[in-house]
């Protein structure tokens, strides 16, 4: 493309508003881009490239080498069918003021029609832009939006000014934002509040620099980079580092126009508070970062990002102000902590009786009782003493009514863990309570201890099963109780611990607690969990076809998770094996034969040995018998999965011989049916191990 092309130019659009919430800014850049490009494409106005920017108050896009004139538009009008009544044709011509020779007849999928096409000269881009801006402004979707003054337009916060320049000239026009309320397009924007002035944009190419000179770094990546650089500069010397907090840093980038990284100190007396309390109090209310030393200990400093140019005196008083605020916050936290440690778990548990878990699912106290009751079913599988598991569950929710957790809900579990330790509960119990909300999402760490995993599991199962029993299972995009995440967490723990329990055994005790005997609910829970297992397993580099093959066996709900897991492993290992490939081909052949035959669903597929004519049939028959026995005996055992798959492969020769020597489609109906039934039995027997039809070659 020729950059000097006089038919093209650069465009700048900036929406200047009051402070847009940080969490919405990045997406607003994307929306601005998408809406603009859509409007240009629809109108056949070409451009070369674009760049978007966003900060608290400025949201803008620069479009490079945009055509200054729209391409000529071909407008085509369809008339009546070519064999329509003459009146209809005349009517079409008359209403469009046309002669017949100005029309053509074209074939469409609905038949032949008269058409008239017309070229309309493309308009000037600057004439079209007001319409485009109108479309963008009205097409914007904010997660939350508002009106202001007399406007009808909704924006995340009041929209105060629109810059619209094409080739450095203001595009004449305005948009309507309410009855008798308009915003004119301008060529000025506003500086950082510390400078507090209106600035005129003369050249689009200077836009970014002009704003930066006025203390607005409009490129969010530049702001991020400045924060990162300034931070490492400040921390490097003392070999300190930030606690990693990606979401906080991204939020902060959206709160400042000109980042100024500063460090304050925390009064030593607060350093005895649990580190999670310190960092939560800093992060949640103040958006401060915690700082670690070489040994990963929290140091008595905090880092924050002010919105200003560096200036010694001001920075000093800003730091001082922030320190005072943090002191106040932390003395609040200390107050909660001191009060909490004089309270007791018994007292908290008593209070839990008054806190509703969910309508129809009892109080939080009821929840802990249910959890305690089912915990014994899991004790052996996790290698935990049943009594200990029970104790941990009964103490696990107490902290929800402590003052600290009431103030900082994100400290649930963590505080319970600390308080348990302070109250001289065993380390195991304290640790279990501490980590039992983990994993909080599929990328979060799992609980480390076996008792913590058990507690996490019974908590989540109780929640999942409870909501299913009252008909609140997730549907479509609706999952208000985050049950899917809950299911993923259960699946993660199950697989991580390769638990010696089946889905049935995991779900049944909880259903019993809810006095629920509905088979439908049980089945939908199992189906739900199989689905979650599938996802988690496929996330761990397992082949999805192998996962499907194992999870689609009919008895999967009764298979211990550890057997499922090792069966998937062993099949994965065997997929490269030549004998396995032969086995798979044989299996698919059987599957195809059976597919082409109609079996009534309830048929017993009885095989009668008196119809056997060949040794090959007998061999298959014997194999089915022995494999069925073998899988019954060894199927649930983790170590035997290799034995089982080896047994299957050993059948290769017999099956191949069967296909060589035996004609299934025998003229004698009884013999034919018997052979088909034999194959059906073979198929079913093998499928108890895995539905091999899912596996791709």
């Amino acid at each position: 493309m020729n950059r000097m092309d006089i038919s093209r130019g650069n465009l700048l659009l900036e929406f200047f508003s009051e402070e847009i919430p940080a969490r919405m800014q990045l997406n607003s850049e994307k929306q601005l881009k998408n809406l603009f490009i859509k409007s240009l494409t629809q109108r056949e106005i070409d451009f070369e490239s674009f760049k978007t920017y966003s900060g608290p108050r400025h949201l803008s896009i620069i479009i490079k080498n945009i055509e200054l004139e729209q391409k000529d538009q071909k407008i085509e009008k369809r008339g009546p069918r070519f064999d329509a009544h003459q009146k209809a044709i005349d009517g079409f011509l008359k209403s469009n003021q046309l002669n017949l020779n100005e029309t053509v007849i074209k074939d469409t999928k609905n038949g032949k029609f008269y058409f008239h096409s017309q070229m309309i000269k493309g308009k000037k881009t600057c004439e079209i832009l007001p319409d485009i801006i109108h479309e963008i402004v009205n097409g914007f979707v904010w997660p939350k939006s508002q009106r202001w003054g007399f406007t009808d337009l909704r924006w995340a916060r009041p929209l105060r000014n629109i810059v619209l320049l094409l080739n450095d000239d203001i595009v004449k026009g305005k948009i309507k934002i309410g009855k008798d309320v308009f915003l004119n397009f301008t060529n000025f924007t506003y500086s950082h509040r510390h400078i507090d002035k209106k600035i005129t944009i003369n050249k689009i190419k200077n836009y970014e620099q002009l704003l930066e000179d006025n203390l607005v770094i409009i490129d969010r990546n530049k702001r991020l980079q400045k924060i990162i650089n300034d931070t490492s500069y400040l921390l490097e010397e003392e070999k300190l580092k930030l606690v990693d907090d990606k979401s906080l840093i991204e939020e902060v980038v959206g709160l400042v126009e000109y980042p100024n990284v500063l460090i304050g100190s925390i009064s030593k007396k607060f350093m005895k508070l649990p580190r999670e309390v310190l960092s939560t109090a800093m992060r949640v209310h103040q958006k401060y970062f915690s700082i670690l030393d070489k040994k990963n200990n929290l140091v008595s400093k905090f880092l924050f990002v002010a919105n200003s140019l560096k200036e010694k005196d001001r920075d000093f008083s800003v730091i001082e102000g922030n320190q005072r605020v943090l002191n106040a916050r932390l003395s609040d936290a200390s107050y909660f902590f001191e009060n909490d440690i004089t309270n007791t778990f018994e007292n908290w548990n008593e209070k839990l009786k008054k806190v509703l878990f969910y309508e129809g699912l009892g109080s939080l106290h009821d929840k802990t009782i249910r959890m305690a009751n089912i915990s014994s079913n899991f004790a052996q599988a996790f290698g935990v003493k049943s009594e200990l598991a029970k104790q941990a569950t009964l103490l696990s929710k107490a902290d929800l009514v402590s003052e600290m957790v009431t103030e900082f809900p994100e400290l649930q579990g963590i505080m319970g863990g600390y308080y348990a330790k302070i109250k001289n509960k065993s380390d195991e119990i304290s640790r279990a309570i501490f980590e039992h909300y983990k994993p909080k999402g599929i990328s979060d760490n799992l609980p480390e201890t076996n008792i913590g995993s058990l507690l996490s599991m019974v908590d989540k199962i109780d929640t999942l099963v409870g909501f299913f029993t009252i008909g609140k299972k997730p549907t479509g995009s609706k999952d208000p109780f985050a049950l899917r995440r809950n299911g993923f967490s259960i699946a993660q723990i199950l697989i991580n611990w390769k638990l010696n329990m089946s889905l049935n055994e995991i779900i049944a005790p909880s259903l019993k607690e809810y006095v629920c005997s509905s088979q439908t609910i049980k089945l939908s829970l199992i189906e739900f969990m199989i689905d979650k297992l599938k996802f988690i397993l496929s996330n761990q580099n397992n082949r999805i076809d192998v996962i499907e093959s194992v999870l689609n066996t009919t008895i999967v709900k009764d298979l211990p998770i550890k057997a499922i897991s090792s069966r998937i492993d062993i099949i994965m290992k065997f997929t490269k094996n030549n004998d396995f490939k032969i086995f798979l081909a044989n299996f698919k052949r059987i599957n195809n034969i059976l597919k082409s035959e109609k079996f009534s669903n309830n048929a017993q597929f009885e095989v009668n040995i008196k119809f056997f004519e060949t040794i090959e049939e007998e061999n298959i028959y014997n194999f089915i018998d022995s494999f069925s026995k073998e899988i019954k005996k060894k199927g649930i055992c983790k170590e035997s999965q290799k034995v089982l798959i080896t047994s299957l492969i050993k059948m290769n020769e017999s099956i191949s011989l069967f296909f060589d020597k035996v004609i299934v489609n025998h003229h004698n109906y009884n013999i034919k049916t018997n052979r088909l039934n034999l194959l059906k039995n073979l198929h079913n027997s093998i499928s108890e191990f895995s539905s091999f039809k899912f596996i791709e070659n």
Partner: protein
Amino acid sequence: MSKINCFQSIITKLQSFWIDQGCVLLQPYDLEVGAGTFHPATILRVLGPDPIWKAAYVQPCRRPTDGRYGENPNRLQHYYQFQVIIQPSPEEIQNLYLESLKFIGLNPKDHDIRFVEDDWESPTLGASGLGWEIWCDGMEISQFTYFQQVGGIDVKPVASEITYGLERLAMFIQKLENVYDLDWDGIEKNKGGKTYGDIFLQQEKEFSIYNFEKSETSFLFKQFNDSETECKNLLNNKKYALALPAYHQCIKASHIFNLLDARGVISVSERQSYILRVRNMARSSCLAWMGKLNE
């Protein structure tokens, strides 16, 4: 501490600043309220009849559950807000706010002022708006809200509400960490000067005991029901629905609900229904104020 920065001078300065902006200077509403927003000068006036309404006033606020027996340096069950309500929201409202800070001796250019997303919703008033909490060097000193709905009714034109947390603001200006140390009058201690604690510490202690331990809940339950009945009766008069007295009862009920809440006698499942009852009173009063109750 000088007289310039004392608690009462911050109030008088804010008053004179907003008077200069054309605000009607009002006095606190004479009932216990949870926030300055409850004042009829905000809640009812933004619904009309005049599309232009500007008012400023101090409002003592009571939040029974925030009581800490005077032991916490930052939490009070009784505190002051300075409330400014301007309808329609003017284009330069943010700048006016920043000017007001400058006027009370807090020059925005010497500080790190931030507008941080904080949307406001009052379930009991059926009211909501979008806006920010305003940080000054990390301290939240004000709330800023563009009213979108009140009593479930769209606010048109939109009104802007600014609420200064007077104690927070004064603590910031006086560089203090304990609210009870605030200099109230700018007079030295040995000359009879008073701190915030001199005036309010005892009140915090006694009311915390009352709110959490001693209030007679059977009285409160009855009062709530009585207020609700009275509110309904006042609005039921078809010829002449008494919106202001009805709303007065709604405010009473709302505070009684807060007191009951502090006593922990309202279960989670009941809570929602109490909130709904207050909201219904608020909505009906608002509709009556607009003359639309029976429409």
